[in-house]
């Protein structure tokens, strides 16, 4: 494995940093374009945007106040300019639904979804890769057959169906796990340090709360993870099967390298590359599935907030939400790309220019 210092010195000297820099600039442009797109969508409401936002109970005065505040009476480019100016000052406007600055809403809800997504990713990587490796190594065994079936079903089932089924079996029928929210209503939440319920509980020494929070995490995280276990596991499996037949693996055996080293080092590395390549794109689906899963499990997270703002035509929040998603996606893609460069020397050589 490359030592970090070696890579760093290499990177500084040559084109890797240039490559990252280029990608960052590209992303900024794309996000810019995205902001225009979503801004356009948000303002192209048939009818009166102010009325759409405030609902039919609002008075004319209230409506007028909103119109002025959001510059709805001005032309589209002017509105965009005001919004952009606000963005550069860290102000994303006020949410018509929660009546708070959007930034506050984001700060409150993002950690909840982040906790969920991270846990789901952890589950899907561990279980998915384990399944893929075992299925590939023991190709055509009963395990392989079962995992193939699971993969087909996992890919074809929408996440909300999985969420409902899981809730049905484990929560309502078997009473093994809770199905609503992050902690029971009766329990008091620990003081917010990171926003991660489990972590905060541990930091506050409330171990029982941490445990309960974990049980609340399990079902929604699993609902999110299933599709990734299915898809990425399958890719890993076929990758392992393909690489097992490669001559160099035979050579490793001929030269007497021990089996554990062959499997966990020489076989594994080439096999997970195609999977990692796909993880970036899959993350997009993870985020969109979060919308549905948070809805089913009433998880007070960013995705559910996003959903609510869209359903309520909360223009400021909607624009902010879409941009956050776009930004996250761009960052994750870049990270995945960098990870691949670390793992795959052929790509590294290409990027470095030999």
């Amino acid at each position, binding site marked *: 494995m490359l030592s970090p210092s070696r890579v760093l010195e290499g990177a500084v000297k040559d084109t890797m940093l240039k490559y990252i820099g280029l990608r960052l600039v590209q992303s900024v442009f794309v996000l810019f374009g995205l902001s225009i797109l979503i801004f356009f969508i948000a303002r192209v409401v048939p009818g009166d945007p102010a009325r759409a936002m405030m609902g039919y109970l609002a008075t004319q005065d209230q409506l007028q106040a909103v119109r002025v505040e959001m510059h709805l009476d001005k032309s589209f480019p002017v509105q965009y300019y005001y919004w952009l100016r606000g963005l550069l000052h860290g102000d994303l406007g006020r949410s018509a639904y929660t009546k708070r600055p959007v930034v506050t809403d984001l700060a409150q809800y993002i950690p909840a979804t982040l906790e969920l997504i991270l846990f789901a990713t952890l589950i899907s990587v561990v279980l998915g890769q384990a399944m893929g490796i075992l299925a590939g190594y023991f190709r055509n065994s009963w395990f392989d057959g079962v995992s193939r079936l699971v993969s087909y079903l996992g890919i074809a089932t929408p996440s909300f169906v999985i969420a409902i089924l899981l809730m049905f079996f484990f929560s309502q029928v078997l009473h093994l796990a809770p199905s609503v929210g992050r902690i029971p209503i009766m329990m008091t939440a620990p003081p917010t340090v990171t926003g991660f319920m489990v972590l905060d509980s541990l930091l506050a020494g409330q171990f029982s709360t941490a445990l309960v929070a974990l049980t609340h995490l399990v079902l929604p995280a699993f609902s999110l993870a299933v599709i990734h276990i299915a898809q990425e596991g399958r890719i890993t499996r076929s990758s392992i099967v393909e690489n097992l*037949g490669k001559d160099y693996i035979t050579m490793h055996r001929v030269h007497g390298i021990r089996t554990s080293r062959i499997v966990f080092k020489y076989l594994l590395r*080439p096999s997970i590359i195609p999977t990692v390549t796909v993880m970036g794109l899959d993350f997009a689906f993870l985020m969109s599935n979060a919308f549905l899963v948070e809805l089913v499990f009433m998880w007070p997270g960013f995705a559910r907030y996003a959903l609510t703002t869209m359903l309520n035509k909360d223009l400021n929040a909607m624009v902010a939400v879409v941009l956050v998603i776009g930004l996250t996606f761009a960052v994750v893609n870049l990270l995945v790309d960098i990870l691949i460069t670390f793992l795959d020397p052929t790509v590294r050589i290409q990027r470095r220019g030999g």
Partner: protein
Amino acid sequence: MALLEAKDLHVGYRTFEGYLHVLNGVKIEVDEGERVGLVGETGCGKTTTVKTILRVLPMPPAQVQGGEILYRGEDVLRMSARAVRDLRRREITAIFQDPLQALNPMFTVGTQLRDILKDSMGGRDGGRLTKRDIEKRCIVALQETGMPDPERIMTNYPSQLSGGMRQRVCIAEALSREARLLLADEPTTNLDVTIQDQILRKLDELVDEKGTSVLMITHSMGVVRDLTQRLYVMYAGSMVETARTKELLARPRHPYTQGLMKSVPRLTGEGISEGIPGRIPNYLEPPSGCRFHPRCEHVMPVCKEAIPPFYAVDEDHFAACYLYRS
């Protein structure tokens, strides 16, 4: 006692279309310190033989139906997995045809070399090696193959090296442990013609120095002439002739060998020959008896009945042909 002695090997592959009966009673012997060549057309089973000796055949499709392979008296085919592993680490080593495929593209040459030494536990001297020892031995192994700047090569990835250098790395990998027997499966066939000679000569030097016995597989008569003392000729899964190299090249007796010799283009003489009529058999439904009989101009009824054993045609010269039955 011979170093390596294979007797009556029958190996086949189970495929979608049926059972490919490839090795049909293969017998081969390599003595201590000897250099034995194995010639035959592509597809006659040479690589299968080597892989069977090393027990690296892909076992789901491949099946060993019978025979034994005695290495220093012990049957490799019936050894435990651990014994086979020890065999690979300390006794038998191999080089294969395609150096690009033989090296893992994701890891540096150094990593692969080091791991080989790490897991071999220091060859016959016994005892574990320290990191510095391993490093030194890697450099030495690379140096021995004639590579300039071995330290830099250690940090390179296989894709950064030329074909000739890659094969040198493979040779270094193979000879880094003090193995007694080297199985070389067409080590230079995939290389540039200009480098083939260089590599072969280097290989020759090295095995000479180390006293390693060699089983060299090739389909080039030139290689065989220069590098081997004894020769086996293989056709469609069995050995058809064996003798000391000079003797066999001068006086081939088996009809197939004779046809082979005639096919080699010579600078003097009658020009390019037409080759041997017919094609190598289909292993799904191989010919009965002697597998060469459909293409042989001396075919007799008995040839179709059973595969001929080795008959002595001269001192230390055997041919598996009923022509020499008496």
